[in-house]
């Protein structure tokens, strides 16, 4: 028993030591790179960490030690929400024992809570595959929704770190100005895309297609979350042979094999689009990500 109390003392004194030195700047933990980019824009002085890259499927992330360590130190956790991170975020919260980021009342922020998601379901069944009852969580590719998210995130930053409120207000107004100036440009670029038909992988680009007017006529996945099967690909080939499909589209973290198979047989271009910031060389922040997406889509011959 004496050993235990000594250990307890050591543990407690050590924690006090660490907390005394750690609280210098705002630590932001982002689940996906798009929210890391947004947080960094809205809080330029913050130390922002992204749990995933644009090359990683955010549905399937390991609750690995480095993420627990980062979440332990976070003042704010920013995620897409709508159950996208359900397979790993709760484990990180449990293991990191950081009460600051346990609930959305405090330092936890879900982008999907701030807007109306597309494709909400009233009934979810495993036979439907990996679907989200709360609607499609890949909402960062809708410029107007992202502006709403940015406003809400800025308010959350102020709530978590009121001392720097004026800086957050300034950063938001800078961002809003630049973003709002870009939206009509993007809409102009999207004009040629309206009504075009594509075959894509998962509902990853649901929001992008929604505001550009692109129609996804088929999905490479037989069901959300399941890998393409040969029989499913054969049925897509039949669909593609109608001749009205512009391209086969996959995201930067998705396997290209099924798309390539289909593209070769149906003589369709295969387009790998950056899913997020860092998804290709051009996408270094949110604005260049949108620029790159529209340039790539318009480049399809």
């Amino acid at each position: 028993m004496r050993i235990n109390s000594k250990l307890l003392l050591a543990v407690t004194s050590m924690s006090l030591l660490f907390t005394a030195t750690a609280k210098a700047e705002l630590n932001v933990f982002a689940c996906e790179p798009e929210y890391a980019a947004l947080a960094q824009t809205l809080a330029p002085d913050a130390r922002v960490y992204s749990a995933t890259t644009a090359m990683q499927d955010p549905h399937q992330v390991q609750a690995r030690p480095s993420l627990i360590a980062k979440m332990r130190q976070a003042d704010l956790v920013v995620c897409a929400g709508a159950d996208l991170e359900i397979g790993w975020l709760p484990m990180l919260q449990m293991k990191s024992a950081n009460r600051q980021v346990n609930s959305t009342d405090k330092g936890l922020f879900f982008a999907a809570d701030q807007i109306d998601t597309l494709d909400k379901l009233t009934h979810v069944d495993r036979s439907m595959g990996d679907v989200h009852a709360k609607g499609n969580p890949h909402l960062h590719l809708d410029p107007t929704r992202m502006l709403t998210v940015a406003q809400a995130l800025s308010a959350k930053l102020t709530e978590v770190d009121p001392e720097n409120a004026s800086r957050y207000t300034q950063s938001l107004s800078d961002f809003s100005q630049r973003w709002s100036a870009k939206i009509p440009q993007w809409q102009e670029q999207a004009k040629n895309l309206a009504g075009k038909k594509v075959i894509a992988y998962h509902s990853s680009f649901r929001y992008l297609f929604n505001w550009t007017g692109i129609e996804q006529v088929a999905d490479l996945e037989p069901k959300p979350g399941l890998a393409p099967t040969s029989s499913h690909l054969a049925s897509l080939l039949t669909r593609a042979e109608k001749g009205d499909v512009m391209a086969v589209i996959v995201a930067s973290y998705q396997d290209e094999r099924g798309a390539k198979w289909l593209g070769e047989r149906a003589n369709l271009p295969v387009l790998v689009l950056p899913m997020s910031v860092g998804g290709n060389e051009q996408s270094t922040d949110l604005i260049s990500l949108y620029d790159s997406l529209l340039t790539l889509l318009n480049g399809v011959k």
Partner: protein
Amino acid sequence: MSALNTRVSLLALACAVSSYSVMAEDSSLTNPSISAVLDGYYQTGDRPLAERAEGFGLGETELALSANIDEMFYGKVTAVVESHDGETELNLEEAFIQTLAMPYGLSVRAGRFLSDIGYLNNQHLHTDAFTERPAAYRAFLGGHYFDDGIRLNYVAPTDLYWTMGIEAFKGESLRAADEHGERDFDDVGVYTALTKIGGDIGIESSWQLGLSYLRNQNGQAYAEDEHEDEAADEEGHAEHSHSASYTGENTYIADFVYKWAPNGNYKYQNLTVSGEYFRVTDIFGMEPGHIVEAGHEDVSTDDYHQGWYVSSVYQFSPSWSAGVRYGQIDTNEIHEDHLDPQKLKESEVSLAWHSSHFSTVRLQYTHQTGTNFDGFEDDNIFTLQYVMSLGAHGAHQF
């Protein structure tokens, strides 16, 4: 009678709640996460100290219910239904609360829960890549060690993951054999202290190292004056028990895990390599007050049990994964006042098909070689098994 009632009402409760929780969004007290795990198999032989017997059978059928109780506490109940030799047993594997809002990275878990020692122990059996736990787990921890107790855990606010924990448990399932039922056991029998560190190497690799120490006040076996072949008795009858078969006063565990995925993207391909080493010391002593007879002074206090394994699992597509594992244990069996060494080696290969990440069908081959190991000598065993989960998405540990 009362046991039966508990069973029925628990199941009824779970069924009642699960009917509307399929659509569970955020788990809450009125809408908890419910999940069930189904596990069935056919196998061609017996592995020593294992849960599964030859022929058709069911593994652990798990029913779990969890939710945040309020802002301060999280709670979880896991009931496990097992059938052995025609008997159906309902056991509680977990029934714990955990704090959610303690300061300084501290948390407390209390109730019945899986000890955090080693790498595999805090993971549920259905997440394993092999049909049975490694022999070291079966020999020294009764498969997986869960018990009634309390844990204090601390996570350091450092970029390198560093956690420390101390636990105290009742320790009944780790008690040394007590043939005559006369031994005066400590009520709080087990204390543990553990630490884990971990991090990433670039974008593609992650690792974790752990060291654990388990003090078992009731772990030392006493010499017998008369010939009592306890250990053999215990295993020879393939009697079902979650108790450790080989115990000692001190157990030291070192563990590591390394995971890799191309670009750090786990969806399509990934590799896991893990291993653990166990050393159990002070396994054999003289009963307090025992008078050593002439000619029997040769009992060595240096004797120990040890065991280790190394395993590697590669998922080469979302639907297929394959694993290899080698493990062995070197144990001592007590005969009167001396120890007889035993050895068991297991080489295993498994191939699994996953229709989604909720269902697995596995074929596993085990080659086992025993030396003085209760008649297990040279065996080849095949197991065909399914493990499927339904209900809430469970977040898995690293």
